[in-house]
């Protein structure tokens, strides 16, 4: 009985930790561009949106150039 309860608690903790790690990894791998305008507005284009494609392309070029 006690062993079964410990197993259940362990499985719950393990799955919660796994979910957190997966979410962090997914968030980190998603490229995005944030634009700040003079009226104080902020626009974010995430990878996958049509506006982000050319911007991310040039951003990658810039990063690659900086690293030789």
């Amino acid at each position: 009985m006690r062993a079964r309860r410990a197993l259940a608690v362990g499985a719950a903790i393990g799955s919660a930790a796994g979910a957190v790690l997966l979410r962090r990894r997914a968030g980190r791998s998603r490229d995005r561009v944030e634009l700040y305008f003079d009226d104080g507005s902020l626009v974010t284009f995430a990878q996958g949106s049509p506006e982000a494609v050319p911007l991310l392309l040039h951003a990658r070029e810039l990063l690659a150039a900086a690293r030789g």
Partner: protein
Amino acid sequence: MPPAADALAHLTEISTQIEAAVVLDREGGVQAATVDDERAGRIARAALELFRQADAQREQELVQLDAALAGGSVFVVRDEERLIAATTGPGPTAGLVFYDLKSALRSFAEPKPKPKPKPKPRTPAKRATTRRKKDDASA
């Protein structure tokens, strides 16, 4: 040391997050860089194209941008005359990087000579005049 190189030297000194930085004019000409000329030219071209395309997204004028990529981040900030582009490693503190880049841009601006204040026209001493008139009236 020219002011451009001086500002970039100070920038890399105070910001441990910034890996490379290039200052360019509005036409893409490199004014100063922390990397060699060939890399600086490539960074400047990519930064200018990135900024122009981003600026075309809205009617408002773009003042700064950052792009978060898997391998690192890219920042571009502009003032009236020039832009500064910088790269960092992954997960930088964006607010701090923007602050440092703006400070570097500000230090680029030539200190303008202050106009001399105009001398104020002297007003005649009214009290003495008034008293004299009173004296004249009583006499």
